[in-house]
Each structure stands twice: as structure tokens, then as C-alpha cells.
């Protein structure tokens, strides 16, 4: 009798479970909506990454360009900038530039064996300058970039930093 009752209970439970295990269609839309939203988010993330990557590359290029310019344009500390020129045959070399109002008397260079040099204390800034050899020959500094010059004379540029 007990066994019969147990079997009946088991059969009832089996039928309940069997019915509940039947597939349901409820939720199909929810799955589709969730996947669609995730795809939109993934696309947005991909676009954002591309934007960041593009911006990063652009920034890197700009920095590289600026860095290259800074490399080409020597930076000098303002505790003394030495201007030097190799001119073994010259008898007089003077330094003229923005820092001395292009005055040929202000900063003559001193000879040291084959080189001519002078050290100036300059405030931070960007200066154009040139050497005048033997009173008539203008020479740009071979160690620094050329500056644009309105008169077509060889002129160099240097930037002094703190």
C-alpha cells in the first residue's frame, strides 16, 4: 500500500516536472534585445577605441614633430651660452643678434687656437644671431638651424630656457 502511494507520488512529481520542462517562448525578445544592445555597445567601444587610437597617433606625430623641431633648434640654459665658430684664418669675429641689437661692437669673440668663442648670459627667449668674420662676411652658426631672415643673410636661431 505504501509502495503504491510512493509510486503515485513519484508519478505526479514526474508529470509536474515534465510539464515545467517544456520549452517556453517567453523571453525570445529579451534575448534579442540584450544581444542587440551589447552589439551596439561593442560597436561604440570599438569606435571609441579607434578615435582614441587615431588621436593618440596624431598626438604622437605632433609630439614627434615638435620634438624634432626642438632637437633641431638647440635649447640652451640661461646661465651662460657659449657661441663658438671655427674660423682659423679669420683675424676678427664678432657676434651680432637680437640680444645685442645687432651691434657689431658689443660681443667680439676671443680666439682660442683654431676656434673663436664668447659666453653670454641671456634671458630665456628665442634669439636670431649671426657671426661677422673680418668685418664683412656674415656666417650662420653651423651647429644651429637657420632662421628666416628678411634680408637674405645667413642667420641662426637659438632658444634659451630657464
Amino acid at each position: 500500500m505504501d509502495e503504491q502511494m510512493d509510486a503515485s507520488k513519484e508519478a505526479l512529481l514526474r508529470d509536474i516536472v515534465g510539464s515545467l520542462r517544456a520549452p517556453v517562448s517567453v523571453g525570445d525578445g529579451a534575448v534579442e534585445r540584450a544581444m542587440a544592445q551589447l552589439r551596439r555597445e561593442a560597436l561604440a567601444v570599438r569606435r571609441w577605441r579607434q578615435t582614441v587610437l587615431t588621436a593618440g597617433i596624431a598626438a604622437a606625430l605632433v609630439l614627434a614633430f615638435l620634438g624634432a623641431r626642438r632637437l633641431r633648434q638647440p635649447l640652451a640654459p640661461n646661465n651662460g651660452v657659449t657661441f663658438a665658430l671655427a674660423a682659423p684664418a679669420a683675424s676678427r669675429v664678432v657676434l651680432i643678434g637680437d640680444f645685442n641689437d645687432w651691434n657689431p661692437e658689443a660681443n667680439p669673440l676671443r680666439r682660442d687656437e683654431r676656434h673663436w668663442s664668447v659666453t653670454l648670459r641671456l634671458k630665456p627667449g628665442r634669439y636670431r644671431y649671426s657671426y661677422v668674420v673680418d668685418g664683412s662676411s656674415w656666417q650662420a652658426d653651423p651647429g644651429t638651424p637657420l632662421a628666416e631672415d628678411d634680408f637674405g643673410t645667413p642667420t641662426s636661431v637659438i632658444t634659451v630656457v630657464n
Partner: protein
Amino acid sequence: MRVPDANLVLRAQDGNLDAYAELIARHRSGLQRYALHLLGNREDAEEALQDSLLRAYRSIRRCEHPERFRSWLARILVNRCRTRLSRNGSVVRDSERDSALDNAAAPPATEQAAWGEEIQRALRVLAPDQREAFLLHHVEEFSYDEMAELTGASVPALKMRVSRACERLRAELREVYHG
């Protein structure tokens, strides 16, 4: 050859949404069934399911045991369903349940449909924690250890809930059962 869940989870963790879609395709029927039978109405079941799928993908890197993805996903759904039940006061909306189940059960033979409705009525009588344990164990076939992990309840407590749920369902359905 079927790719194991764990491999798909690892791909999904690398941002492969197609791998995640495949995982969901494998497990969606159980998730849909659980949400509908636990919550008892289409609207809440769909919202809980959608919310779970979104949360699962967004936090899939926290799935520490890819080989147990099904349990991990079920835990998220169980929690979302609990939240819905607590928000709704665990009241099942009868009209919605009826219309949902009209469309949900297959095939809708008359006698079968009536039996299905009786089962839903009986499920509704169960306390939510009993209904949860019964569905997870008997319908979705999780082991008690897995259930303990995904519900946070102890194995003895879960066994008791399942046992009480079975007794209550039998008591509710004995009169209408013609098996």
C-alpha cells in the same frame, strides 16, 4: 565538434561577442523557463532575463571558473529574479500569467493546457524560496552543491525547501491529477 563552454567564455572575456551569443543560445531555454516559472508573468520574466544577459556580459571577466559558466549565469538570473520578486512583493499577476502561459507552453492541447495551468497555480502557492529551489533542482537539474553556490543557502536548507515544495505541489495537485 562542439566547443566547450569554457573555451567560449575565454573568448567572450576577450571581447568576442559572437562567443557570448553562442553561450546564450546554448543556455537560453533554461533561463527563459526559470524566469517565467519563478516570476509567473511575461513582463517581469523578460526584464529579468534581459537585465541578466546584459549584466553577465559586462561582468564576464569576473567569471573565474569558465567551465561552470551555466551556474555563474544562473546565479545572476536568480538574483535578478529575487530583486523583481521583492520589488513586486512576490505577487504574481494572474492575468499576465495566464496570457504568458497560453503562449508559452507547447503544444497547447486542451487537457495539457489545463494541467499546465493547474501546475502554475500550485507553483504560485509556494513560498518564493521553495519555488526557487524546486525549479533549480527538479526542472533545471542543478545539483545541491551548485544550488548552494548560486543561491547562497546551505545544502540542508535547500533540500528542505525542495522537499517541502514537492509535498506542497503534490497536495495542491492531487485532486486534479489524472495520471
